């Protein structure tokens, strides 16, 4: 029982990571209708920037929280620039496949440039969370603990969700963003600057990615250019599972994926080595029963 809970907590810890990247994916999708395959590598680049700002030995030695904040601001601007310069002109030629190619090009390019600038050695990212564990309860023998960092990650993620939800559902700006995502031409006719909204969507997603990447890196014993490569696949899984148009769905699905993964590693021996089958298999099954994901809204197709 104790092992089970520990694994679940483990899974939650990983799941929160997947969920936070999935959040950025869903945000871009909800505001621009695009699947950004480069999300992970954009986050990676920002993570390196955070490291550079915070590192005592190789960088500027700023406090980690400040470094993350600045990195997020840089990511915000960069995200807007990428949308304006690379994505929009290609999209205007009206081929969604072309946009996919551009994001794939970014995927390749950003990873390589990051390694060029920052080197290929593993680096250490300071953690913004206090060290140590929190005891949940003890059952007979050892106590079941969860690290403070995990709790911190969960809280940060929840705060992000809350803020985004509030922005999108309860503010005029959010309404404009969603209107542009739903029908950009019609939005323009209502006096909304569609281009600005698109840039904003990318900017926010980039900033969220920067936060997610920095936090993920801080929880590892070292990070390098491969940080995001597997995470992005799990994040896509989480986003799809949750239904691409639901922010909270992405987060919940991320946690589900994390837990399923952890439990499989622990308990299902025949699947040893291919535990990734579980989260991916989960997607297959869920999407077949619920083609719009767990939380996605049914789109009625009116002819």
């Amino acid at each position, binding site marked *: 029982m104790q092992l089970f809970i520990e694994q679940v907590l483990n899974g939650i810890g990983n799941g929160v990571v997947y969920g936070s990247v999935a959040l950025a994916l869903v945000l871009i999708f909800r505001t621009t209708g695009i699947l950004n395959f480069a999300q992970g590598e954009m986050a990676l680049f920002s993570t390196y920037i955070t490291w550079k700002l915070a590192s005592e030995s190789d960088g500027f030695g700023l406090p980690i929280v400040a470094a993350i904040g600045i990195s997020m601001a840089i990511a915000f601007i960069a995200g807007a620039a990428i949308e304006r310069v690379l994505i929009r002109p290609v999209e205007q030629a009206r081929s969604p496949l072309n946009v996919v190619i551009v994001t794939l090009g970014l995927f390749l390019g950003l990873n390589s440039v990051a390694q060029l600038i920052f080197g290929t050695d593993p680096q250490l990212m300071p953690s913004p969370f206090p060290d140590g564990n929190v005891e949940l309860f003890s059952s007979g023998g050892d106590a079941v603990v969860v690290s403070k960092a995990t709790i911190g990650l969960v809280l940060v993620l929840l705060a992000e969700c809350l803020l985004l939800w509030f922005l999108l559902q309860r503010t*005029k700006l959010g*309404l*404009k963003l*969603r*209107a542009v*995502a*739903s*029908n950009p*031409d*019609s*939005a*323009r*006719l*209502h*006096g*909304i*600057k*569609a281009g600005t909204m698109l840039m904003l969507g990318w900017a926010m997603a980039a900033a969220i990615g920067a936060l997610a990447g920095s936090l993920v890196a801080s929880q590892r014993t070292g990070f390098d250019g491969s940080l995001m490569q597997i995470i992005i696949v799990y994040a896509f899984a989480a986003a799809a599972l949750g239904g691409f*148009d639901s922010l909270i769905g992405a987060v919940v699905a991320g946690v589900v994926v994390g837990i399923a993964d952890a439990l499989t590693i622990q308990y299902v021996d025949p699947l040893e080595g291919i535990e990734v089958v579980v989260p991916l298999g989960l997607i297959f099954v869920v999407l077949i029963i619920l083609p719009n994901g767990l939380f996605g*809204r049914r*789109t*009625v197709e*009116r002819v």
Partner: protein
Amino acid sequence: MSLLELANLRGGYGPVRVLHDIDLVVEEGHVAVVLGANGAGKTTTLRAISGLIHAQGDVVFDGRSILGRSPDAVAKLGIAHVPQGRGTFTDLTVEENLRVGAVNRTDGEVKSDLDRWYSVFPRLADRRHQEAGSMSGGEQQMLALARAMMARPRLLLLDEPSLGLAPLVTRELFAQLGDLNHNHGLTVLVVEQNANLALDIGHWGYVLEAGRIAVQGAAHELHDDEAVRKAYLGF
């Protein structure tokens, strides 16, 4: 006093020229009707006004030239354009759709306007939290009209509102439109294929043919003129 004036308007899509020298006037408080067959350039005219396509010549709104402005700038000047296909925000709810209409307003009367339009279109009130994309064509058209009105526009551009609607619904729609014009002084430029209903509420009519104005005149005259009807309006 003319609210809208098109002078020597020319325009189209890339190499395809659709409009050739359109001269058109819409008086304040009037309903101007633009008729014509498919492909005559009716929709293109509206798009040129809204800045959705590049055009040459001049578009003068309330004494100021607005040619070349972007669609969102034109909208902010007080022109509401309901495009063909209604422009519904399908993923948003009915109420959110209406709020989008008012998104650039800074006065505090948005809520009371919402109530007002809900009472004019009770079917929208019933569905206020429903996803707009799941509504019928007629309901979406009502929504489009209400949404446009939420901006408190001075000029309403309507592109083929009757398209895809059942006759009864169309009748109702035009009745509403007529009422908005009569009792609330809304200026309307409506593009239609359904000439009958449009001319009934209209003051002045234009018939477009191959990108030019073939005939124009007082709406009821066009309506009664047999030659015009047979040649251009098909009834």
